[in-house]
């Protein structure tokens, strides 16, 4: 977090002249100077630095040049859209990768298993934005079945805008969520399969069979549970990549989330917004890693967080 904030300050200090970006070429030098003075861009660097530090500590990352509202507020207003997209994609990955990976581990030579593994190579080789483009071409342009951009109709619950509650919202969510999951799915199927093959080969599995346990208990309670730790590790490691893929998916589907906003901010040199995005991503990142650590303890009683209960 500290590193990210330092980068943030450095970026703010060194980035181009937002006054020019804002006023455009037509504005006179006088107008530009007035705007610079109003935004405090003429003050010495150290003063701007100190002001930024103090404000950041209060959660104030400066007002977006474009939206004229606090940058953090602008970013966070887009958070629900991104969160729902990521959540849906994660659900799809979990729902499909576990059964598919299990199946491929249990019947490694089966025709279906080989088909799944072959498809997974293809899935890894197709960049996510192409998956999105193909999906749009097929389902929106050719068949006209599903909408291709935006969130559709949303329901507002307090500060949260959700597309989970309307049919229109869900229809808009389907293509982006499937696209986002398509890149993670092959990776997880391969990992589930690999880990399960390893685990099922071990002695305690033989013991479990010898005890006469039903197959599903051997596979799920004994096998999957022991394969779960590397899965959670990979999930945590892949999270940063998932965020990057979210930017790509949001761009393809013009999904009004944080990534879409971020690229827009880059194009308009809206520095406070860029920094706010980096900060928010940093916070999300730290949170996810903490959750991963907690999950370790829940899955594997041998792992402790350094605090002994007894």
């Amino acid at each position: 977090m500290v590193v990210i904030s330092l980068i943030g300050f450095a970026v703010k200090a060194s980035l181009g002249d937002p006054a020019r970006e804002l006023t455009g070429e037509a504005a006179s030098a006088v107008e530009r100077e007035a705007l610079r003075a109003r935004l405090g861009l003429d003050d010495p660097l150290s003063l701007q630095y100190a002001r930024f530090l103090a404000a950041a500590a209060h959660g104030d990352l400066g007002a977006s040049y474009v939206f004229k509202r606090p940058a953090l507020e602008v970013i966070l207003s887009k958070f629900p859209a991104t969160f729902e997209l990521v959540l849906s994609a994660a659900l799809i990955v979990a729902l499909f990768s576990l059964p598919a990976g299990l199946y491929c581990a249990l019947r490694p030579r089966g025709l279906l298993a080989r088909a799944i593994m072959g498809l997974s190579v293809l899935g890894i080789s197709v960049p996510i934005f192409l998956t999105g483009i193909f999906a749009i071409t097929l389902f929106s342009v050719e068949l006209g079945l599903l909408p291709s951009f935006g969130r559709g109709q949303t329901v507002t619950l307090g500060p949260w805008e959700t597309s989970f509650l309307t049919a229109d919202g869900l229809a808009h969510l389907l293509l982006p969520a499937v696209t986002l999951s398509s890149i993670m799915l092959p990776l997880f199927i391969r990992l589930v399969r690999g880990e399960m093959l390893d685990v099922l080969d071990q002695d305690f599995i033989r013991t479990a069979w010898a005890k006469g346990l039903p197959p599903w208990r051997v596979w799920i309670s004994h096998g999957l549970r022991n394969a779960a730790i590397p899965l959670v590790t990979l999930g945590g490691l892949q999270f940063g990549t998932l965020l990057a893929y979210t930017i790509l998916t949001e761009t393809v589907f013009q999904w009004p989330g944080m990534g879409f906003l971020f690229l827009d901010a880059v194009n308009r040199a809206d520095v406070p917004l860029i920094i706010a995005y980096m900060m928010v991503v940093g916070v999300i990142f730290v949170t996810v890693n903490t959750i991963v650590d907690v999950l370790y303890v829940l899955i594997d009683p041998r792992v402790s967080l350094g605090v002994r209960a007894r």
Partner: protein
Amino acid sequence: MNAPATAPPRPVGLWRRLLSDRAAAAALGLLALLALASALSPFLVSQNPYDPAQLDVLDAEIPPLWSEGGVSRFPLGTDAQGRDMLSAMLFGTGISLTIGLLAVAIQAVLGVSIGLAAGYVGGRLDGLLMRIADIQLSLSTLMVAIIALAIFQTLFGAENFGRLAVPLLVVVIGVAEWPQFARTVRGSVLAERAKDYVLAAEAMGLAPLHIVWRHILPNVASSIIVVATLQVASAVMAEAALSFLGLGMPVSQPSLGALIRAGFDLIFSGVWWITMLPSLVLIALILSINLIGDFLRDALNPRLDRAR
């Protein structure tokens, strides 16, 4: 000196095995074709797609030859600026491959040196370097690259950025992915350094640098080759993704990703070829490199992350 117990497969045997593996052989053929065509593209194409003087806006958005309205001068159609798609795609493939190879070269130099140092010296240095590698990996290449390039673009302005795009992409993708090499090399070095031939070299009093360079490096080469192959695929994919986001190659000098981006705006008006044709080339490129990488991994069998 003792030869290591498990000698790597001889190159000739490897070559024969590659040709007998249908998928890998097909992938190699496809890749060779793409690489050759893009390398020879200046002699093959009718126009230089990067020279605005040779483009005519009146030729814009002509569909491919087999569609209605296609003309024989542009067998695969033209893009929105009247650029011949065939020429643009061949040049774009060249750019994508060049950036991918150069970026992987940077990754390899950084990652192999760091991995060798961490694995051979061990101890606190190892701990520190691997911790840095883990942090860098968990931040994800693409995220780091997106943010770095976004900052550069704001810093330089879109126009200057376009001129610097190739070196910037190479450096950003190159620096962001070194941990892949470092971790693999370190793992292999740890396995090698306990072997007799290394102990013998140490007993002879050879300098550590000499041991690492002349004795260990050749024996971890197979894992480096495998990682390098797979990394080229991921670097090509990263370049395409960044260009698609508008953080890579400019429209005036399109790589495959930039062509796809330019065509994507027109896809709803039925102009499919500007997006779809480069997409197919890009997938063919990445898929063939990945298939060769998979083959090499199975054939050379180094210790690697199973998830890849």
